[in-house]
């Protein structure tokens, strides 16, 4: 049996101390929706769990002039149902609505999901496409990590063991921007067979000024489709270009065959989804 001690810090400073004291042996637990299965399968065998769920100061959604900030204890459910997110960041609300089941969304946190860095996590590609950052802190102070630099490899992140992620920051998007995310999955709320997020900004003549495209579930960590983005740059999008963009996106995917499908099928799904989300993002930008 796995034996561990659960520690309940009463404030952040307390939590920092615990993590420093048990460096290398302690894991943070927030909603437990990512960690519990990992413990069950003995992929990790921590000696201490630092339960941060009581640090309710970290439960917030703020949409300010610089952009959106979501606290570490904000649950998937809160993001999914937030009126402000539905209105200003619909891509996030839509992504959350198809993440796991209601129980998982009630317990699990968005930040916990990002820290878990599962290769099938839904939030990561969306947040990456939107250019988000993660604010993290420890005894030694705070730092801001661009998600671009956060996901290093299979379930490996730039987060240090003594650090706590405090909030996700999503920068305010330029005018005429749109973003879309789609996963293909067996059941409605299953983990993705493949998923793609795209964020685009158009100029006044509907030419693509900027685009960010990220894939999930087809690589050890979320991966960016730079070539595809380059193809879009400065262009007015048509069907032919969409095909090229889809092809280029799939070109950087490196899926494996597993219970979600063969690698070949996942590649095909990347193409289908890429077409869909890029055109959806463009439509949204045009309407913005």
């Amino acid at each position, binding site marked *: *049996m796995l034996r561990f001690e659960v520690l309940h810090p009463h404030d952040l400073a307390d939590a920092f101390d615990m993590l420093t004291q048990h460096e290398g042996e302690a894991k943070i637990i927030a909603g437990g929706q990512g960690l519990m299965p990992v413990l069950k399968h003995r992929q990790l065998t921590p000696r201490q769990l630092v339960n941060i769920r009581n640090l309710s100061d970290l439960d917030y959604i703020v949409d300010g002039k610089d952009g959106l900030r979501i606290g570490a204890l904000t649950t998937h459910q809160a993001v999914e149902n937030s009126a402000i997110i539905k209105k200003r960041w619909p891509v996030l609300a839509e992504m959350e609505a198809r993440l796991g089941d209601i129980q998982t969304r009630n317990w699990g946190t968005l930040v916990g999901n990002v820290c878990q860095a599962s290769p099938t996590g839904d939030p990561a590609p969306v947040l990456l496409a939107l250019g988000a950052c993660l604010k993290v802190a420890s005894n030694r102070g705070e730092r801001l990590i661009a998600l671009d630099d956060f996901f290093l490899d299979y379930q490996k992140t730039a987060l240090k063991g003594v650090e706590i992620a405090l909030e996700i920051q999503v920068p305010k998007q330029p005018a005429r921007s749109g973003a879309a995310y789609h996963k*293909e999955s*067996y*059941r*409605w*709320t*299953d*983990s993705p067979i493949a998923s793609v997020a795209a964020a685009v900004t158009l100029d006044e003549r509907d030419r693509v000024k900027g685009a960010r495209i990220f894939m999930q579930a087809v690589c050890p960590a979320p991966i960016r489709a730079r070539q595809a983005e380059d193809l879009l740059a400065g262009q007015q999008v048509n069907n032919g270009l969409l095909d090229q963009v889809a092809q280029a996106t799939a070109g950087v995917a490196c899926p494996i065959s597993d*219970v979600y*499908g*063969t690698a070949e*099928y996942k590649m*095909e*799904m990347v193409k*289908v989804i890429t077409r869909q989300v890029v055109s959806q993002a463009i439509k949204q930008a045009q309407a913005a």
Partner: protein
Amino acid sequence: MTQTSVVLTELPAQLEVVGKGVPRVDALDKVTGKAKYTGDFREQGMLFAKLVRSPHPHANIKNIDVSAALAYPGVKGIVLPEDAPDRRMGYFATCDRQVLPKDGRVRYVGEPIAVVVATTSEIAEEAVALVRVDYEALPAIFDAEEAMSPDCPVAIHPMKHTYSKGSAGGAVQAVPEIPNAASRFKIRKGDVEKGFKEADVIVENRFTVARVGHGRMEKYIADAWMEADGTLVVRRAKKGIWRDKDWLCQLFGLPASKVRVMESYIGGDFGGKGWVAFEGLVALAAMKLKRLVRLESTREEDFHDGTMAPGAVMYIKDGLKKDGTIVARETTMILEGGGYTGGGSGQSALCIHNGILACYNIPNWKSDGYVAYTNNPPTGTLRGVDAPRGSWAAESQMDCDAHALGMDPLEFRLKNVAREGDTCALGQVLQHISPREAIEKAAELIQWGAKSEGDGDWKRGKGLGLANYGVAPMAPSDVLVKVIRDGTIEVRHGTDEVGQGLNTVVAQLAAEEFKIKTDRVKVIFGDTLTAPWDYSSSASRCTWFTGNATVAAARDAKQQLFMLAGKRMGVAAEELDTRDGRVFCKTAPEKSIPFSDLFQYESAIGHGEILGKGYYRYQRQPFDPETGQCANYYPTYPYLAYGVEAAVNTRTGEVRVLKVSAGVDVGQPINIKMIEGQIEGGIVMAIGQSLLEEVMLKNGVHVNANFGTYRMPTVMESPYAANIKVESVGKPDPTGLHGGKPLGEMVLIPFFAALGNAIYDATGVRMTHSPMTRESVFWGLRQHANAH
């Protein structure tokens, strides 16, 4: 033919409780959480068992060293193969299973080798890891067709010629000439060669289907203990208290009076809660340690021990006349049985035909069904006992036939559909059947012929499927009905409430007899000390068997009641009837007496209550083993036709079931609400098994033994309830209980092909493997596009 059945004495219109949508008698208990399941029982000082399991698909056990495990604090004892009886058990066909591998060989990954008992299940689990087993690995085989090849180098049961047959083993045969064949069933009707010669068109196909699981909520759990007088008591989440009692007596050589078996409500069965292996293990532990021992599966273990439905390979060849008549059919069906088939799949050599053998009038029929041993986990019974598999092949083939002739699939089916007096593939004359009405109704409700429009990437199509199902003519049912002085009617039966609603049916039947409301009926079940003999809730037999016995017992009790009342009232018993807890005179209804007075009056001379007894049995003739012909194998033939409208995403291969129609021939329905409930539930289960679910094994190891990746449908994958239309079209079967016929398993059978046919209608892609996963549909669409 001996048949003691309740003849239709009332016109359906006169029935007051039967035929109505009465709410379930256990609904309140269940929704309020008051209903007790086996896991709710806790006893002080109970011990917990965990199993040492084989990591090898095929190996000889050289040595088992338990010293470290026995020394582990908290461990109370370990049961080894040497403690186990030297006896092979089987449920139906083939007795190939041992409780523990007494023969020193394991045949699948996960096979139990020893039982570790400790004060907590965590300690037991830790100690399991300390048991050292030395193995000599043997070559293993996982593919059914390879295993069936006469020169397969691996022989999984080299001593199989010495195994005996199970209780109902008469139907299937041993196959000594094929090393890895567990059982065979042959059908020889007419002359297929002649039939094929007469045919204008021959259609041949190969269909395959994956292994699937039951997906029930409640896992295996069993407690066992010894009473002071040496009685072995087993309380478990499983069906068939009397069958288990028999098995345990046989297994351990115990007299009938020294085994007691108990059960509570069962949290889902779907055919997987029949086999006794688990009880054998926990009973062994209780007998060795003289303590109350509990054995409970994890979800993963439930996949190992779950007697899942085998995968199958099915070859089917039809000979057709240009006018649309089928003149001959030949099939070879091979089921992948895993390491052992005693959990029920041995019988599947027959049962795989069970959804197809009475649908159409096919004069010449030749069929060979086989169950093959492999080194995958064992298989067993699952709702329909592989009839859904045979139906997947045969009803897909029906559409292929129709298209080969340029005929509409409905028209083709109607041309061949079985009529009153036709003989089925087993040679039995079909009576009181309405398959034509069923298929016509399903077609009408799905608006067959009206082309459904697609929408963007989504193409739409419709498909049909028809099935029959034989209620299995198994061991008899006994029921006791008591009249209690406050007017309550108590029914005691020995089968199971596995969630199907049997207790409600039984209550309705008793209520009808006494003309009272169902809430005046109390149903008692689940203990061999208090409930009378019955077989088990299997093979859609309960309404027919237990139901018939209930009515017989109620009538016996009523007779006694009328004798008593007659004496008191000075009226002949034949003049009396009962309603609302009173006995009254039929010719002068104002002359009546409440039950309570009757008992007061009579108690002086010794009547405290009245006990009525009833039984039902069905005697069938033996099969001819060379031809599979039997004049009366099944007591009745119900039918179900589905119409399915589905949408296929041409970019992704995703399939959505939009609408389902059902034309059902269950004679006179006993409870129309429960029929709708069974059909709706069956459709959701069938959607899972035909689109999503698949037990994945790699070298005999489960890849997806969890509900995250063994994907059962959620509400999001199911059609809106309003899009499921059910109509009952049967005419009462006068040999049936109140004219009714069974339904429980049939609800799964014709769905698979109906959906495959809808996909074909939408896209022109013929799916030949089930589940029709989105990926397989995607590649099917690709291939189709490249070919056209």
